[in-house]
């Protein structure tokens, strides 16, 4: 059965609902849940198609899963599909987070809440460090001096020199691409 058969082609409502479901489970990042919902539960895309599309979204700038919602929605229902998927993904999280933001404004100075947030921030920093290390593994495995150099240059310019991101990327990205000899 071809994945683009009518049977598995979602409607606007289904796109909205599907991404809504993903958004509600997405603690610490939405991508694993996106895969589960789109490939395993709803069968909109085959595993390879999903990986392809995700690869494209990671290749592009902007929030990964946000771009994915647009790509998936557009694939099945054009612009309306992209909008439905996007709204499904963002509607509830944005509402929740605004409510939390309002609570923070009110009670942010309450000692207990500050302490809880401090604990969460410490854990979250660790989670991001883990993500950086995971992403670094394939780079380091290839023992590329170039990759390590640009990694450290980027890290240093941002954290030690406090240079603006646009400047760092404008200078380092073309250099890194020019020097890149191996395939991704």
């Amino acid at each position, binding site marked *: 059965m071809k994945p683009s058969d009518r049977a598995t082609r979602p409607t606007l409502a289904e796109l909205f609902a599907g991404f809504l479901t993903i958004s509600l489970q997405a603690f610490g990042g939405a991508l694993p849940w996106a895969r589960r919902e789109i490939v395993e539960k709803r069968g909109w895309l085959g595993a390879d198609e999903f990986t392809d599309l995700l690869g494209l979204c990671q290749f592009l700038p902007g929030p990964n899963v946000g771009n994915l919602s647009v790509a998936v929605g557009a694939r099945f229902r054009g612009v309306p599909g992209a909008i439905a998927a996007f709204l499904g993904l963002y509607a509830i999280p944005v509402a929740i987070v605004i409510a939390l933001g*309002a609570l923070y404004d009110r009670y942010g100075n309450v000692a207990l809440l500050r302490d809880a947030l401090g604990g*969460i921030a410490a854990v979250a920093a660790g989670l991001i460090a883990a993500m950086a290390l995971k992403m670094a593994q394939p780079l380091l495995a290839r023992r590329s001096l170039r990759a390590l150099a640009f990694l450290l240059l980027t890290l240093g310019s941002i954290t030690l020199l406090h240079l603006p991101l646009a400047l760092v990327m404008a200078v380092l990205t073309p250099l890194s691409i020019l020097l890149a000899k191996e395939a991704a």
Partner: protein
Amino acid sequence: MKPGDVLGLLCLHFAGLSLLAFGGASAVIPEMFRFVVETEHWMSAREFTDLFAIGQAAPGPNVLIVTLLGWHVAGLAGALLATLAFSIPGAVLAYGVTRVWQRLRNAAWQARFKAGLAPITVGLIAATATILAGTANQTLTAMAVTAVSACIALHTSLNPLWLLAAGAALGMLGVV
């Protein structure tokens, strides 16, 4: 600075950041920090980290930090417009590229582009971790919590929600 100016500046900056955010919102957090805390002084480092923590604890994509920054700086309009400003440029690009994807596939330059960009993206995410750890880890126990969380996240597939909850509990108990 008038509220309208603040909102405009915020949205403009986030829209620009959207196009640099290879690897997602996490990669541009250092720049958001630099802009919002160091350049414009719209909030303190502690407040930024607090808002980041809230964004992590809530369900949904990581981009929510942008919503919170917008809320804190310019209320409801700020929250919504900042989110849209950050998401739409990338989304439009994604839409356009998916249409021509079939034709661009397997172009040799893509592999090179990805290979070139990869270490920079990782460097940016490492920078994010460093900056956040810097503000969150004021005590030895906080550093330990960060290190342990990183280890657990690296070596297990435990749902990060448990780790975040543990962090909140440890914080409230006064351990961190």
